[in-house]
């Protein structure tokens, strides 16, 4: 297979399939990763990343992830990264003598990465780490003279820039040196020196610039997996595969069996299909609901629920919010599985996912302080200590509605350093300290009217009363009454229902109660 066009076709297919996979099947994956970071174009932000091993890979990955804000851009970025990895694997394999007939094998690591990314905590930083390690190794194979001296600089550089990727780099270059060396004994000695240098790099890092990081971070990277102190075995397997794939390609090249091309092509296709099945439906359904809610695609929420069903309190919260926003909550909630009061406002469960939709529901209901509280806790629950543009926006809005302009300004300033939230933040800044302008704003003005003037404690045990009080306080907020009455129904509390139902006279349109017996 020495035809340039066929190889290009394989790579292009990989890129195209990857892009369509994320854009059409899993745009929520893109949105999910984008919403748990806040990439800022500031010197401090660069510095904060670069003082950590693997910081450059992390910085570049975050730079890429910000484009996930738009699904087509996100899909394209991911496609390019995966194709770049595939090409690097191929080019390194070629450098050690792999035959062009085995080009499909170079797709395997990229496809395995697609599968791995089905774990929502697997970070694009890992993808960038692998790519940079491969690129460095590829660069190393191009060095003709004084390679051993270059390696003395490149090993610490690989650690500094890619962290965990140093092991991949070291493995690739060791294999390359062994296979291409004229003097095997001398090369073995050099390899020993290289491994000693890598160990020294780790020891020095442990007691200097990585002093305050755990040994797990030092050895396995700071942000290759979102949860600290955890790294799945598949991540190590991929790293190992990347190291050994060029060698494997070289070895199978010796077989000179052309039929292997067919087997490898089929294997790549099967693996590609398998990779797409590694996105657990139960989890990605929730992310999809959250994605629709985030983008206020209420019809999409309802249609998806009709198609796929509702089996979870968080999904139920999304559906009820969508119905509420369309003024159909009491009329149509009976059409869907309900999860009690939890299905109206799912409780915070000390993780970064559980109440993203609850936070949105609180925001739209006019429970602006609760929305802020949830957004704060969601932001603090992000396992890798990163901030979130999405949550920061809501926090800034909360302070703005509350008239805490200096506090709002802090968050708006941060957002103004980002790429896709900057114009929103700069526009929001023009509202600060301008009461009339805020009151005239279609959303913020409305939220101000919704808000209680007197102290009113948020209590889960008395949620129905709170919501109905919210409506009483501002009858414009009919969704609060819908939620309050829905709450009584879901709690089978007919006494409260009878108590609050007369308030519906103040509502613009009467209820139909479809599906509720």
């Amino acid at each position: 297979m020495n035809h340039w066009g066929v190889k290009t076709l394989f790579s292009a297919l990989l890129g195209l399939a990857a892009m369509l996979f994320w854009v059409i099947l899993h745009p929520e994956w893109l949105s999910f990763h984008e919403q748990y970071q806040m990439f800022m174009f500031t010197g401090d932000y660069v510095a904060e990343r670069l003082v950590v091993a693997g910081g450059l890979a992390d910085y570049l990955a975050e730079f890429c992830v910000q484009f996930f804000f738009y699904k087509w851009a996100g899909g394209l970025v991911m496609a390019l990264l995966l194709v770049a990895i595939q090409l690097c694997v191929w080019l390194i394999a070629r450098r050690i003598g792999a035959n062009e007939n085995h080009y499909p094998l170079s797709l395997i690591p990229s496809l395995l990465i697609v599968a791995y990314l089905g774990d929502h905590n697997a970070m694009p930083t890992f993808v960038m780490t692998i790519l940079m390690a491969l690129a460095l190794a590829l660069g190393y194979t191009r060095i003709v003279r004084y390679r051993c001296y270059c390696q003395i600089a490149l090993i610490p550089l690989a650690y500094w820039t890619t962290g965990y990727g140093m092991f991949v780099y070291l493995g690739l270059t060791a294999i390359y040196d062994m296979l291409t060396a004229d003097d095997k004994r001398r090369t073995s000695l050099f390899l020993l020196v290289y491994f000693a240098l890598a160990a020294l790099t780790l020891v020095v890092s442990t007691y200097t610039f990585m002093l305050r990081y755990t040994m797990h971070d030092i050895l396995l990277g700071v942000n290759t997996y979102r949860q600290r102190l955890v790294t799945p075995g598949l991540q190590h397997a991929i790293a190992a595969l990347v190291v050994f794939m060029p060698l494997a390609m070289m070895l199978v090249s010796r077989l000179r069996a052309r039929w292997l091309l067919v087997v490898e092509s089929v294997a790549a296709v099967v693996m590609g299909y398998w990779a797409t099945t590694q996105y657990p439906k139960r989890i990605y359904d929730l992310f999809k609901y959250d994605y629709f809610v985030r983008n206020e695609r209420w019809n999409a929420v309802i249609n998806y629920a009709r198609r796929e069903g509702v089996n979870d309190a968080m999904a139920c919260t999304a559906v009820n919010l969508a119905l509420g926003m369309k003024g159909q909550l009491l009329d149509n909630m009976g059409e869907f599985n309900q999860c009690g009061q939890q299905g109206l406002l799912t409780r915070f469960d000390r993780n970064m996912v559980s109440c993203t939709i609850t936070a949105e529901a609180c925001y739209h209901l006019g429970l602006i302080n609760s929305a802020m509280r949830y957004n704060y806790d969601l932001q603090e629950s992000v396992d890798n200590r990163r901030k979130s543009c999405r949550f920061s926006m809501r926090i800034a809005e909360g302070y703005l509605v509350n008239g805490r302009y200096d506090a709002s300004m802090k968050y708006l300033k941060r957002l103004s350093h980002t790429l896709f939230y900057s114009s929103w933040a700069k526009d929001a800044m023009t509202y600060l300290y301008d009461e009339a302008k805020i009151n005239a704003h279609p959303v913020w003005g409305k939220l101000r009217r919704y808000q209680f003037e007197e102290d009113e404690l948020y209590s889960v045990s008395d949620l129905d009363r709170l919501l109905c009080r919210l409506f009483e306080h501002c009858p414009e907020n009919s969704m609060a009454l819908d939620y309050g009455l829905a709450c009584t129904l879901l709690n089978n509390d007919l006494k409260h229902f009878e108590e609050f139902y007369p308030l519906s006279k103040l509502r613009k349109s009467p209820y139909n109660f479809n599906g509720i017996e």
Partner: protein
Amino acid sequence: MTKLIKILPVLLSLLLAACAERPSDVCVVDTMPPMYPDYVGVTIPAGIAPLNFNVDKAEKVWVEVKGSKDGSLTASGEWADFDIDDWHDLTLMNKGGQLSFDVSAKVDGKWCRYNSFTIDVSDDPLDDYGLTFRKIAPGYEVFSDIGIFQRDIHSFDEEPIVDSRSIPGECMNCHVANRTDPRQMQLHIRGLYSATMVQIDGERRLLQTATDSTIANCMYPYWHPSGNYVAYSLNLIHQCFNESNSHFIEVFDKASDALVLDVRSNQLILSPLLQTDDFETYPAFSADGTKIYYCTSKKYKVPEECDKIQYDLCCVDFDAESGQIGTKVDTLIKASAIGKCITHPRPSYDGKWLMYSYADCSVFPLNHKEADLWIMNLATGEKRPMDGANSDDAESFHNWSSNSRWIVFSSRRLDGVTNRLFISHVDENGNTSKAFLLPQRNPRVYYEDMTRAYNTPDFTLTKVDLDIRAFMNEIYSGERIQVTIKK
């Protein structure tokens, strides 16, 4: 060559000074400079970090500082950024005197000169190394971006003692030293790797402080002057949220007790007086170690009756020889009788004063705008607000310097939301000077951009020495010493 290296910085400074834009065609404005932060009329210790400041809307500033006794200093640039060594020299030369500031600023291309103002340089030294405090990103149930830091008060150097990079995902709090001396210190780690770390003269141990006989882990600590005991409260802390725009959160205890830990034997000393059905919290030893001050309130239904929880200030004897808690409670201030609430008693180390938070209600005055700092003369019982330190917003989490002449506390006065640290001077009569914001290199950028809040500040006599790598190993080992109850 060596000579050249030595004089190079001087030459560079001269060159920069020559390049700095001097005010010309200056108009005089009859107002105080619109500066951030407000340092007009504050009292500072000699040798403190420079009181750099920004001037609103200024493209350039030019500041001349003259000492009432001797010396002068200029700063120019986008903000008033004083040279640290020159500033130290000037403040030391003018101990007991004043520094006068002439501020000119270039606004919209025109230079304006504002009214001069002065600050006092106290005779009372502040020789402590600096401050320790927690910096925490706002959150209510989860804290991923949290750390305990130390700051050299004489410069702008700040470094973590321990933070969430080392122990991710866990709350850490209450780093407290014995009368500011970090040779005896303690701090808590919460969550999966829960422990109370006690370090005495470099020897460290991790304690498990929850027992079957007590309601919770040890919480708010205070060292006995002997270093043999730490008084703790045990608090079942909860919080509820308010949906109005005036008052966001209320923190309350569902139960609370107080006790003493004997750090020599790792035993808890209990007393029925400090473990009643009511709330007891914030214990603090008197300067001579013979009393335990604490706050107590009747128990109310929470959160519905949070606004009724009002703490009185009480004390009970303590015998350091036998480790016995006394048998009689003295009520020092019956704040609840006048509809008020006292928390966070902090006796000065010279035994003269007792500083406390004074609010309408709540165990956590931080969230109450009306919360102020008050001081009581322990000899006469006279009480008064610390006017120089107080503002229209909440003040709380206060502590004394080792010589009991300076206090540090947190206040929300800047934006109504985020706690910042202020320092104030307390003279021999208990009068408090106007508080000044903890200096930063570029205060506006630092404070306005930082979303993290400060809390639990304290002075530290020397730099805190914690072997972080060893500490992390011990934390992750899971090995803890279980405290026992003293019979």
